[in-house]
């Protein structure tokens, strides 16, 4: 019973942190009416678009992409309308359910597929549909000459629909439909140009690594069903306090495994770099702004569980801190502009993961950083796409340089993203990241020093590698040759970049000092009092600023002032390791891929012997008899005998029947 007491004790601690006596994640959910009752339209509209474009065939070629874009905006509009309706309600009533249909009911499990419209899910809806729609618009230009443009937009719409299922689901099981649905969309889009065998392999890798994570999610659901007899958020979260400590820890760890797969966190990070094989708008939308943050969403949504299991939560923070550094180190060594951005995405999600691992005080900043990151990283990916557009699809930054004059709009918008991610004061990234660093320092004991230190150090490295990327591309000497003719992208591409650039600069100032994001998310996360950081807030801010200046300055000295070699020079062991993603693929090949293939080969060889009837007679046990029969059967005698016997049995029985 002490285990139970302990978890109850912890529950009351976390409740004490909360302003809302109803408890965390236990906001009274009522059935939606009005526009909110039509919340399913947010999913249905892009889903219909995907179906229409895929089934409609060539006749939708001309207007399909535009329709898909329109439907994505329509989904955004419904989302806004739902938010307007929600703001009209008292804060504690801002959780509406939309029951849809009786989906899986068997034994203990009685599961209605339904949506949960609450501040957390709707914050994601805004991010997904707004950034997603902008990227649809951008793609109208980026994919203009692609022969499979219609299919591309169908997949984009499919992605938006699946991502909305993921965040709007009111149960883990329906969430899982969206979870693997975005995985499918991601697979299809990474492999969009799969005439290149490497791209096809990248798509497979992404799906399979994600499946490893999905085993975690399935396991978590299995434990939930055995423990609570339910999979919907309300029942599981509402009764989490009654479960044993070990059970909750296991659920927490299993969910984390799922989150690691989807969000490319250590040790399941290996697929994200390869995923850059997809067209760049895909990298911006799926592999930067939205899908890869789903793991953070999952942990934040499951706060009722993590609040009761400090052990699992600590592991979340450790995974976040590790990945934060991992991505940052890899990012320093990449010369491929998209892979460098991918490494930075991994690192930034590490920040979010660290933040949700810090407990109630961290959730808000995790989601805040997730939103601002969605803007500034999508902005930079679209910028990278614009650079590639200008440079005949080249991605090697060693062959860029001095592009700031040739593609001014791209340069300026990219600069906004760069300022935000390195945490330049008062940009969006500064607000959200600095709060994560400060919160990390409020942890007690070693945790505060380690997590705070890592977060601070990461900020310095981020400033270095992002500045490296920025300077190698836009500053220094032009290292491209006569065959490249840099030109600015059309407005249909640059306008979305401008919008996102604006967001990268001001979104933090708009959302945080005004109290908008805090007030909006408080009904979900509760009001958590900040503890005192181990060192004064001002000192943290100054340190972060100094590290940023040092990191950016170092990059300026190395990549803008000095000449950048056109091929990567010989480097130290650390750099070589970072270029190879710290040997992640080598490790995976040695531990997983190699043995799997070896097992498959062994199984095939062994089975061939069995199937061919043991040509050498070398089969064992009871199979000897069968293989012997088979060998004799070759002459056709046994075969006809067996068949005769069978026919005889049936004939005799038939005759007996007739004679009755």
């Amino acid at each position, binding site marked *: 019973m002490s285990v139970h007491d302990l978890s109850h004790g912890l529950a009351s601690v976390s409740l004490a942190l909360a302003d809302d006596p109803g408890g965390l994640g236990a906001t*009274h*959910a009522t059935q939606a009416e009005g526009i909110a009752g039509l919340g399913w339209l947010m999913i249905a509209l892009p889903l219909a678009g995907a179906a229409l474009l895929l089934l409609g065939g060539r006749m939708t070629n001309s207007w399909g992409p535009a329709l898909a874009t329109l439907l994505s905006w329509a989904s955004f509009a419904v989302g806004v309308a739902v938010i307007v309706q929600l703001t009209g309600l008292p804060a504690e009533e801002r959780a509406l359910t939309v029951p849809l*249909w009786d*989906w*899986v*009911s*068997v*034994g*203990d*499990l009685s599961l*209605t597929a339904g949506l949960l419209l609450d501040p957390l899910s709707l914050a994601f809806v805004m991010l997904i549909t707004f950034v997603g729609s902008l990227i649809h618009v951008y793609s109208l230009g980026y994919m203009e000459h692609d022969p499979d443009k219609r299919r591309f937009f169908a997949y984009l719409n499919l992605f938006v629909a699946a991502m909305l299922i993921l965040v709007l689901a009111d149960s883990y*099981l329906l969430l*899982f439909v969206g979870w*693997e*649905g975005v995985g*499918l969309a991601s697979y299809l889009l990474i492999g969009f140009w*799969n*005439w290149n*065998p490497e791209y*096809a*392999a990248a798509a*497979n890798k992404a*799906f*399979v690594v994600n499946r490893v994570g999905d*085993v975690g999610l*399935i*396991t978590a*659901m*299995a*434990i939930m*069903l*055995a*423990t609570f*007899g339910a999979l*919907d958020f*309300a029942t599981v979260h*509402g*009764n989490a306090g*009654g479960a044993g400590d070990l*059970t909750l820890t296991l659920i927490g760890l299993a969910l984390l495994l799922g989150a690691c797969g989807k969000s490319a966190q250590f040790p399941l990070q290996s697929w994200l770099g390869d995923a850059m094989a997809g067209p760049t708008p895909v990298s911006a939308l799926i592999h930067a702004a939205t899908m890869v943050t789903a793991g953070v969403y999952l942990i934040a949504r499951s706060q009722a569980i993590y609040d009761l299991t400090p052990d699992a939560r600590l592991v979340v923070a450790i995974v976040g801190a590790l990945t934060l550094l991992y991505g940052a180190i890899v990012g320093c060594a990449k010369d491929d502009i998209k892979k460098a951005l991918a490494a930075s995405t991994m690192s930034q999600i590490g920040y979010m993961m660290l933040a949700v691992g810090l407990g109630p005080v961290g959730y808000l900043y995790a989601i805040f950083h997730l939103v601002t990151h969605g803007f500034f990283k999508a902005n930079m990916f679209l910028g990278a796409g614009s650079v590639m557009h200008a440079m005949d699809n080249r991605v090697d930054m060693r062959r860029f340089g001095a592009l700031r004059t040739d593609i001014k709009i791209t340069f300026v918008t990219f600069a906004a993203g760069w300022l935000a991610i390195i945490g330049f004061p008062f940009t969006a990234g500064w607000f959200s990241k600095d709060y994560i660093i400060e919160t990390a320092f409020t942890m007690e004991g070693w945790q505060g020093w380690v997590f705070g230190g890592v977060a601070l150090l990461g900020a310095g490295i981020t400033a270095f590698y992002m500045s490296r990327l920025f300077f190698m591309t836009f500053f220094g000497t032009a290292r491209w040759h006569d065959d490249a003719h840099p030109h600015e992208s059309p407005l249909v591409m640059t306008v979305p970049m401008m919008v996102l650039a604006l967001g990268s600069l001001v979104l933090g100032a708009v959302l945080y000092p005004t109290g908008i994001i805090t007030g909006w998310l408080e009904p979900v996360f509760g009001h958590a009092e900040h503890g005192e950081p181990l060192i004064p807030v001002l000192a943290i801010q100054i340190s972060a600023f100094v590290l940023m200046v040092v990191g950016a300055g170092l990059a300026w000295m190395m990549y803008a002032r000095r000449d950048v070699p056109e091929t990567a020079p010989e480097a130290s062991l650390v750099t070589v390791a970072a270029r190879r993603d710290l040997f992640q693929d080598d490790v995976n090949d040695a531990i997983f891929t190699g043995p*799997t*293939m070896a097992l*498959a080969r062994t*199984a*095939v060889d062994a*089975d061939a012997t*069995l*199937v061919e*009837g043991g040509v050498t007679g070398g089969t064992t046990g009871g199979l000897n008899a069968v293989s012997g029969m*088979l060998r004799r*059967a*070759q002459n056709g005698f046994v*075969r006809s005998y*067996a*068949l005769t016997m*069978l026919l005889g*049995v*049936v004939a005799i029985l038939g005759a007996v*029947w007739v004679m*009755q």
Partner: protein
Amino acid sequence: MNFPWLTTLLVLPLVGALAVSLLPKGTGLVRPVALGTALLTLAVGIGAATQFRFGGTGEGQFQLTEVYSWIPQFGVSYALGVDGISLSMILLGLVLVPICMIAAWDDVPAVGRRQHTYFALMLALSSMMIGVFAAIDVFLFYVFFEAMLIPVYFLIGVFGGTRRAKAATTFLLYSLAGGLIMLVAVIGVYLAGPRGTDGFLLSNLTGLDLSVEAGRWLFLGFFVAFAIKAPMWPVHTWLPLAAEQARPATSVLLVGVLDKVGTYGMIRFCLALFPEASRWATPAILTLALISLFVGAFLAIGQTDMLRLISYTSISHFGFIVLGIFAFTTVSQTGATLYMVNHGFTTAGLFLVAGMLIARRGSRDLRDFGGWQRVTPLVAGALLVSGLSGLALPGLNSFVSEFLVIVGTFQRHPWLGIISALGVILAAVYILVMYQKVATGPKPEGPELEGITDMSGREKWVVAPIIAAFLVLGFYPKPVLDLLEPAVEQSMQTVGVSDPATVVDTSANHSTEGSDH
């Protein structure tokens, strides 16, 4: 007297088969008559389903029953009846037969009487299929169990590929071996029962007071036959050869429907007749199920022959089904029986679409493909969708059943549940690698690809109902679950097991939640 629905279902295709074989040479009517019969049978089957009461009638386990004395000297009755599990299997077969006929439309040219035979055999097979699932007399079941081998034997042995003779013989010998062992057990259980003129009736043989020893031997007699049929490792070895050599439409009926007799038989006979022995054998069977699940998956990963690959995925999926049956929870067993339905559609999609590719390329070898997404985009797309069903993507049919098996197994055996969940990773590998080899890569060029066209109108009629079934069963499995669950509860009750209780009583907390769940 009520309308004899099941006998009608049994006789209609036989009449059709006779009519088809009597048609004159050179007529164009063979295929329309065969398809018409299959569709008519399907319509009657739907009619029968409307007469079925989901919640039971309160008059015994089976509905739509017809019981007549057949060979009273031996205690054999002509007894038909269905519960939710057998009805779902019959309906699955009735839906798949016309689809397979459309897929097999051009398999055999209308020269001589070969086409007559081909379609007549398919109709005869569908009749046997109904009989084997509807029989509620153990001996009658045995007769259908053996009789259905005949059309399959000829379908493989006459219309199969170059090594068809060996494939057909292997299939026949394995099945006969299993069948003979079962025959001994069938007679054994009769002798242990009340005997008399209706001594083989299932209802007369349930709940026998068998000695522990006898029960276990008889159980094994049935189980071996069913394990061969299912097929489970290590008695699966007839399947790859049969699936490789048979026409895809034959494989669908064989693997998608007839092999379910194995898992169906485990529930209907092994569990119902020998509850004690079933509990006794459970650890061994769970182990074999897990081995089948993983060995099948590894074997599929290593294949280069498309049809063989698909047959090995089935061995893996049968591993899931047997696991769910012998985990003995309502969730796992309902999941397993739902899987039996879903697997039929998944297999149909995979085999038939692979057949379309093979017919175009003239090769089953994956290495002869590559880049077909850009040769026949629709066929490649259908392969992908069928594959996604095979890897149990949520939203498609297999997911619900696979998930229920995993979480239901976890309720009783947590470790087995988690280990089986690892199978979903391997499923992703074998399906996606197959798709990668067939469809991705640069667009192929060469003389062998000239004149190849994308999916024809006929083929769309094959694919459309299968994909529709994927989606309907994925998002709205409720009618099938409602059909299956009472039968599963009955089976659990017979074996004398009940579901493990949940750890946390959620009812109290629930009401204070104010939630509508």
